């Protein structure tokens, strides 16, 4: 809220009297968030400590403040939790490795093709998430363009398939979330004044040192934003694992999905959701601290 007070103070210096404008401008957003985020969260929190109603009717629960729901939920899906974070981390690293050179080339080397290339990066978003994931299944499938050449080159055995595997899930997530990584990277690279890079060269830094000491540090806000925007949805994702995976690649999202919609075990689903949220929050807090970009968030 510090920036709000600062903004209010700045407004004061123009008008000479206290201004309520910054607070008024905030109202619609606050109202929206309270109704559609805070209330549901409280509801979810309440649900997470309920236990089955005495009637034994399926899907009917009463509040008993049963915190052991959390322990049980965690013990039952430890494996899926771990998998979620491992897959999300792998997909994020893979997306970063693909996106950085791509964003760099678009920002510095594409000349008049720049805008077209940015549109192409976003283009996959014009089709539905589900459709793209199913398409990925086709691409990796028996008759797709990937398996054949890999087998011909003996990079994979003649019996090996790519679908219904951890590989398919991770690459699917990478593919699906790639624009989330590329766009912030591109935005921060494109903002770099090319003259600062020339200045580095002028001050005895060769190409690689210029990248290490100037380009990369200046693109760090984009790296942090991109990895967060990729990691967070990837850690909670269940579509890729459902469509591209097998029973042993289930992620925590899949567990929540099945608890909620199939077994109607609302308390466990709610407890898992909360734990996922808490884990993500802790991880990104540590991450932002470590990368020294607090002031950018």
């Amino acid at each position, binding site marked *: 809220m510090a920036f709000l007070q600062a903004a209010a103070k700045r407004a004061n210096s123009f008008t000479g009297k206290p201004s309520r404008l910054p607070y008024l401008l905030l109202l619609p957003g606050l109202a929206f968030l309270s109704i559609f985020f805070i209330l549901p969260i409280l509801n979810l929190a309440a649900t997470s400590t309920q236990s089955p109603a005495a009637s034994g009717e399926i899907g009917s629960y009463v509040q008993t403040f049963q915190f052991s729901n959390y322990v049980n939920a965690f013990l039952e899906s430890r494996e899926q939790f771990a998998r979620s974070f491992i897959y999300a981390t792998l997909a994020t690293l893979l997306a970063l490795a693909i996106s950085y050179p791509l964003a760099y080339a678009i920002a510095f080397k594409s000349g008049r093709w720049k805008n077209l290339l940015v549109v192409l990066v976003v283009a996959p978003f014009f089709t539905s998430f589900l459709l793209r994931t199913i398409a990925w299944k086709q691409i990796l499938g028996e008759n797709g363009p990937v398996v054949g050449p890999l087998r011909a080159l003996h990079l994979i055995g003649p019996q090996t398939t790519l679908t219904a595997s951890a590989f398919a899930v991770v690459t699917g997530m990478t593919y699906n979330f790639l624009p989330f990584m590329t766009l912030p990277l591109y935005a921060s690279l494109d903002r770099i*004044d090319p*003259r600062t890079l020339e*200045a*580095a*060269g*002028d*001050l005895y830094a060769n190409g690689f040192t210029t990248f290490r000491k100037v380009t990369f540090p200046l693109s760090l806000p984009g790296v942090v934003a991109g990895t967060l925007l990729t990691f967070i949805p990837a850690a909670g994702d269940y579509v890729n694992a459902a469509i591209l995976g097998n029973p042993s690649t289930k992620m925590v999202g899949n567990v929540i999905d099945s608890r909620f919609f199939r077994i109607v075990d609302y308390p466990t689903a709610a407890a898992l959701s909360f734990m996922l949220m808490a884990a993500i929050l802790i991880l990104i807090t540590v991450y932002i601290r470590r990368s020294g970009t607090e002031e950018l968030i």
Partner: protein
Amino acid sequence: MADASTSSRGDLKLTRITKSYSDFNAVDDLSLTIKEGSFFALLGPSGCGKTTTLRMIAGLEEPTAGSIHIGTTDITTMKPYQRPVNTVFQNYALFPHLSIYENIAFGLRRRGIKDVKSAVDKALDLVELPHLADRKPNQLSGGQQQRIALARAIINRPALLLLDEPLGALDLKLRRQMQIELKWIQKEVGLTFVHVTHDQEEAMTMADTVALMHDGKIEQMGSPADLYDNPKSVFVANFLGQSNLIDGKIVDSDGDNFVVDLFGQKVSVLKSRSSAKDASVLFGIRPEKLRIQPSDADKPGNVLTGGRIVDVSYIGVSTQYQVEMPWGQEIMVFEQNDDGIPPLAKGDGVRLSWEPIFSFALDGHEDATAGSEVEVSE
């Protein structure tokens, strides 16, 4: 690379440098020698190729033809980071993510020098901003950023320091102050400065040698006084200060002088101040070199009679007159208000006189408006 700044010393020599873009030459067959340790100004209107020339010296642009030497070392194809040359960029180009201290230390660190503290402190002292070491560039004013950019370059003791309109973004007062400081710093550190500017006053006050550039070529080069007093072309005469240029014909030779006929009146000009190709000349005289008297006064030297004052502006230290001559041309005259005589009035008949050594003669076939402000602003 650690000795990049000491391995090659000496004069900077550009030999027939050309930089072509698709349809024209930004720099056109330019040759130039800059003496080691001098303050050299590259002056010229916007777009004449100054930045391009500087970028080729820095290695940020590759010449289409020609070669660049420092002393005996050919640096034409060296990468920027291999050259003993540092640049103060037009927009400063400080590293926004680094502190002022680290900005200044950047060049030393890249050359593998571990103990940078005393050098950085000295550089900060030189630009008188030691208290800003821990700030980030965006917390500094334009003038402060400018000094840091200078410190960041100077600390490397390059053979050559290039400054691309380094004072362009500063307001007039700060600019004048920085001009004096830059000149002082150059003397202090004894490096060769190549200073690019489009401000003739700046070039004249700071530089030992000024090269006036026009359309990718050097129009004339010399000391500020030489360029001002003895311009060789209409462009130089008009770009540096103001000039009255009158159509004339050389009609006679008299010892060291040419006798020139200006619409029926005879005046003289030193042969050494003439760059006429044939009899047709543009006779030049600076407004402040002219003396103005009532028509009946009698003064020796070169004289033009039959003038009539059409405009008088009194501006404190001097009075500016527009005098219409019998052939219809208006001549500008600046008179110092130091003789206690009240200024002449509009409508007065006057004669103009001057010492013959103050005039010059240019090739009469040139366009008399080349390099004047009207043309430059287009």
